[in-house]
């Protein structure tokens, strides 16, 4: 586990312990509401979903916890619970909801829970004192903007923590990671925020029924997201698997497509590409040799770096045609088509992804599966010599950094 994750978990843990200690002294107020919201959080934690990019999310738990933090009253009764009680109930619900995951042998995903708890705590500390002010309690036009602002804050805090963890894990640039995080979390964040506000407001009219009524639409949203993410990952898995067709057919060396795609994505990330671009880059890198399937005779060793540029162009064209037939990844088809062009001097300049794949492909053709450092540095040297025309100097530099880091982690 990275130190960033540990830090977040420890911070959330300390927060929870302090809140529990304090609440143990003063006791829990309005126990019925606390239990209802705690069970909603537990349920939501049980029904976690994974968002694109392997991000963990628990929309129902988040909506429940935020709703509790923003609660104004239950029926006629004003809500008087403290921020610390919100933390206790949220943490308790999370732990109860995570237990079945642990029992089933799935990871508890502490970092995600910690991040959500910290976001909720920020909202609770900000809003619980405000909830006692009669002007806020009595007028929706005063309460609504404050609440909306706080819900946005929660989304932002969660994204910042997520981005911090990813920046260290991948590694990526913080600004890029934050932007990706915010973008991926936005649609679900909007639904969570709206539901939290609904729960907070409608509890005044409908009492506890509101808690369950407004979980309904969120449940539908969550089911839809789960299916969306499922098909997305099946899609990627399928392209990954089918990209091996060229290997099974003896056109390229075993593992070539996968290695090129991993290397290309690492270089793209090094160059500050965002996730949607990285996804296209990965698809294109996986399928960059698919055009070879149309060749009658495999190229000896499959190394496209060694064949004439006319042949390279033909393979790239054929591959782009295959991808273009699907009509859904036209951008990817274009990347594959233009990977055969020299990175410099072409008008217009090939897309960054094409330049990355050109370099990554050449590197892998020269080095292959070998972990030999001399061979890698010889290959890098050859790429550097080609930066006058063939390869993009920026890409080659990023590639050498990635390769250097890899050698370090292997050593």
């Amino acid at each position: 586990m990275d130190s960033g994750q540990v830090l977040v978990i420890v911070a959330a843990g300390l927060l929870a312990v302090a809140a529990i200690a304090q609440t143990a002294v003063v006791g829990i107020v309005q126990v019925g509401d606390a239990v209802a919201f705690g069970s909603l959080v537990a349920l939501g934690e049980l029904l976690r979903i994974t968002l694109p990019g392997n991000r963990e999310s628990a929309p129902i738990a988040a909506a429940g916890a935020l709703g509790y933090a923003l609660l104004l009253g239950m029926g006629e009764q004003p809500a008087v619970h403290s921020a610390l009680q919100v933390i206790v109930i949220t943490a308790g619900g999370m732990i109860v909801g995570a237990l079945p995951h642990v029992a089933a042998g799935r990871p508890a995903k502490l970092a995600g829970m910690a991040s959500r708890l910290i976001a909720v705590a920020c909202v609770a500390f900000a809003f619980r004192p405000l909830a006692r002010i009669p002007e806020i309690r009595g007028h929706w036009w005063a309460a609504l903007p404050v609440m909306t602002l706080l819900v946005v804050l929660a989304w932002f805090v969660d994204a910042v923590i997520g981005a911090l963890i990813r920046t260290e894990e991948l590694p990526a640039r913080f600004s890029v990671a934050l932007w990706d995080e915010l973008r991926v979390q936005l649609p679900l964040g909007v639904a969570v925020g709206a539901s939290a506000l609904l729960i907070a407001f409608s509890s005044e009219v409908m009492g506890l029924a509101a808690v369950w009524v407004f979980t309904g639409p969120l449940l539908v949203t969550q089911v839809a997201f789960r299916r969306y993410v499922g098909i997305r990952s099946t899609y990627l898995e399928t392209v990954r698997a089918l990209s091996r067709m060229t290997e099974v057919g003896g056109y390229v060396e075993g593992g070539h497509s996968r290695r090129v795609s991993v290397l290309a994505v690492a270089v793209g990330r090094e160059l500050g590409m965002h996730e949607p671009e990285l996804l296209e880059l990965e698809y294109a890198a996986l399928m960059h040799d698919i055009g070879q399937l149309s060749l009658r005779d495999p190229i000896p060793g499959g190394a496209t770096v060694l064949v004439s540029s006319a042949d390279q162009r033909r393979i790239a064209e054929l591959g782009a045609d295959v991808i273009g037939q699907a009509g859904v990844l036209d951008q990817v088809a274009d990347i594959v088509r233009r990977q055969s062009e020299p990175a410099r001097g072409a008008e217009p300049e090939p897309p960054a992804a094409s330049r990355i794949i050109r370099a990554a492909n050449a590197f892998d053709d020269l080095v292959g599966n070998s972990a030999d450092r001399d061979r890698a540095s010889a290959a890098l040297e050859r790429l550097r010599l080609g930066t006058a025309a063939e390869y993009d100097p920026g890409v080659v530099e990023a590639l050498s950094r990635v390769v250097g880091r890899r050698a370090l982690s292997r050593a």
Partner: protein
Amino acid sequence: MGRLSRATWVYVVAVAVTAAILIARGPLGSIDWPMLAVLAILFLICESSSASGGPRQFTWSPSYAATLASVVLLGPVGAAIVGTVAALRLRRGLLVVQRLFNGGMYALSAYAAGAAFVALGGQPGIPDQASFPEIIGPFAVAALVHLLVNHGLLRGVLWLTRDGDQASNALGRLDLRLMLSDLGYAAFGLLIAALWQVVGPFAPVLVLIPLFVARWAIGQYTAQQKAYEAMMAALCKAVETKDFYTRGHSERVSRGSAMLAREIGMRPGRLEAITYAGMLHDVGKLGVPTKLLQKSGRLTEEEFAAIQLHPMRGLEIVREIGFLDEALAGIMHHHERIDGRGYPLGLAGDEIPEFARVIAVADAFDSMTSTRSYRGARRVDEAIAELRKWSGSQFDPALVDAFVTALEREGWQRREPVVPPPGGSAEGVTARDHDDPTAPLWVESR
């Protein structure tokens, strides 16, 4: 829509005029116009959002929530005015007559719902804590009345404008499930009305946001799934490009397997998996040297063994995809025979996974109805006769029967007759199709 009959015009005008008269009769004085404006805008947004046509298994009618909220908050006349806004629906290409009808239809159904609500003792206006739970009864009846009037008027216009066949199809779609889901959306109307007290005009915004996000996610899901299927088909086509005669085979086998699977009543999840398995069943052929697939003479035993390996090669490629295990088993065993003389494992009878037995039938059928270098395409009835001949030895008899039944109902879109490639060399084509039960591969015996 072609030229409209006079009856249709009369019908549409009658609906619109009735709505106009009901609104004009008022009372208009007591209406809260700012509230009406908010609800009308909301209704317009909801109504326009349904224009883009969502995925099939997902009904989308949030405008029901807006109308029913208007019924509670504004009463019959106000709700009818909100309903007329349907005529302004933001969508290009709508004819004036369509707009007229939409506005009239929604106004009438909202008015009817409002009348029912008031008749049963509902008090139009912002409900407070004291209104619950008494309000639920009249509201439920109002929602039901709205639904029935709305669907009734719609059926009328469908019946008048389309010929019998299409009308019954369209009417068939207005099934119970759709009505139930519409009632579900209507229930959100009560929530909007109840929340008006605490958040005013933001009530509908808050209530509808999660629904719109859900719709967005479902749209994304559908788009991804379509993209996925198109991509898989394109990659499978890439495998076939080398052999002129087998082009389109994967896609047709996929379709045939799905047709047979539907016929034997497979549930949707498995149906989807077998569609994919049918598509991917032959990717392992890539692992077989092209010259073996194209060899015209007898094969040595080693060569035959290499061909027999292709289902395993296919499995090797697709194993990492998060499919149902059944789909993988289907790909691996699609050349097993019921009598146990198939490959790779020589399974017999029920030992062969169902997916594999289904794919085997569709696979052989497509091979027989397509042209091969050594023979022309067989007619569908000849191919059926061949299937029957091998039923019980190569194929599962029950599946052959089901396949024939499905064929008779749905027909078979077979490959266009193939003209051999220009240049006409025998090179680059399959000499003996390994899928063709009528032309067994010749293996040299030692």
